[in-house]
């Protein structure tokens, strides 16, 4: 009995000492701050910062090759925590969320034909430009929803919608959309133009009941051109998100019905 205890204790001692020595003399030193920064990052590995994952971003932060505040998922709180660890000042970032700039549901827009291929927006777009009459609108095959790491996007009635509360602003959907109609907008902005079609009004009307015709009424109602709440690309109104409009009454006055006040839907997850 005694011999057994002594034996096990001896083996344990030898192992402990050799491990301690190995750790002291053989260990490869790594900056401990990398681990600390990784711990405060959200760990979603969404890649929104432009790095391969949270670990890689943490490494780059500690090495000083990446700007603090690039993590949209973590937001200001995360940036502040990272800044505390690294002893640098955080660049203030406003939380941004994705917005699908189309409101042409199946009932509002026309379809040119039956698309019978695989359910993927890019592939549908490569087949005669997709089945939607509007060449700029949402196809509704859910390429954005498939890449969303947070399941914040759902497709209903042929239209993708983003859940503002779940969206972490990683921008993957922006890249996935073949029609380039998803934009990252400040989460605080509440008034949006939900259209992406820059062609003339009559042409838009042929294919969609809720397309922007470029009538400039939103601009007039929000204080005119000087107020600078809107910019125009061809016959398409765009909200100037550096100076977004705040008066919700202009939404109802849009004759094309393509404006909305906080169109982000909430699923109640």
């Amino acid at each position: 009995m005694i011999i057994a205890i002594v034996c096990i204790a001896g083996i344990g001692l030898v192992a402990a000492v050799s491990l301690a020595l190995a750790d002291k003399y053989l260990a490869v030193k790594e900056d401990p701050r990398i681990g600390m920064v990784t711990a405060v990052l959200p760990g979603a590995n969404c890649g929104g910062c432009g790095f391969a994952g949270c670990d890689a971003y943490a490494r780059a932060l500690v090495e000083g090759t990446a700007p603090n505040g690039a993590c949209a998922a973590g937001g200001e709180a995360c940036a502040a925590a990272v800044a505390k660890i690294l002893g640098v000042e955080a660049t203030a970032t406003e939380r941004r969320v994705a917005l699908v700039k189309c409101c042409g549901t199946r009932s509002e827009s026309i379809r040119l034909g039956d698309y019978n291929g695989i359910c993927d927006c890019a592939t549908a777009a490569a087949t005669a430009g997709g089945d939607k009459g509007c060449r700029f609108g949402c196809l509704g095959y859910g390429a954005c929803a498939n890449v969303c790491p947070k399941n914040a996007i759902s497709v209903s009635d042929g239209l993708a919608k983003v859940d503002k509360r779940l969206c972490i602003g990683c921008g993957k959907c922006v890249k996935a959309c073949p029609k380039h109609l998803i934009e990252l907008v400040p989460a605080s902005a509440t008034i949006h133009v939900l259209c992406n079609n820059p062609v003339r009004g009559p042409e838009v009307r042929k294919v969609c009941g809720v397309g922007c015709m470029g009538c400039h009424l939103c601009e007039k109602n929000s204080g005119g051109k000087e107020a600078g709440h809107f910019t125009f690309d061809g016959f398409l109104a765009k909200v100037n998100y550096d100076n977004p409009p705040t008066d919700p009454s202009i939404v109802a006055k849009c004759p094309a019905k393509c404006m909305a006040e906080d169109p982000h839907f909430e699923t109640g997850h």
Partner: protein
Amino acid sequence: MRAMSYYLMILVGAVLVNNFVLSRFLGCCPFLGVSKKTETALGMSGAVVFVMTIASAVTWCLDHWLLAPNNLGYIHTLAFILVIASLVQFIDIAMKRFLPPLHAALGIFLPLITTNCAVLGAAEINCKQGTGFFEAVFFSFSAALGFGFALVIFSGIREKLAHADPPRCFRGIALALVTGGLLSLAFMGFSGLVKLPY
């Protein structure tokens, strides 16, 4: 010649007939855990072959020169766990320092097998059979090869299964367990292939 056929029988026995995972059911957790991709399965297999061979050599020495002479056979499981765990940790640290490329390939798997039952099982079997040093080490090496063989086959099947669309209740580990069971049944076909030295 006879020695060679003896070692060959050990090899065939450990790889096919009494496969560690599929008939002895040792090392099931890495078998299910790191079998999603053939690439990682290969890395894991390499790490297991490496650790199992070294661990069996060390535990053989420990058993023969320290435990058996002192009539301490009854605590060998305890002693082996201690030795194997610290040995793997030591190898991990040393490898990181001296062989960074090998560490990059095997490193993430080493901590996973510190207390792996397959490694301990090999040491236990050697101890029970009372074989000689070279036989013991060769048996462990073959057993690890068998483990790697099963793991790579399994990961190949799972890679194909990833493209399938099974009912929701079967997704993930459930289907993996069913597949593992079928693979185990398939390996039963090897029983009686050689007259086992073990």
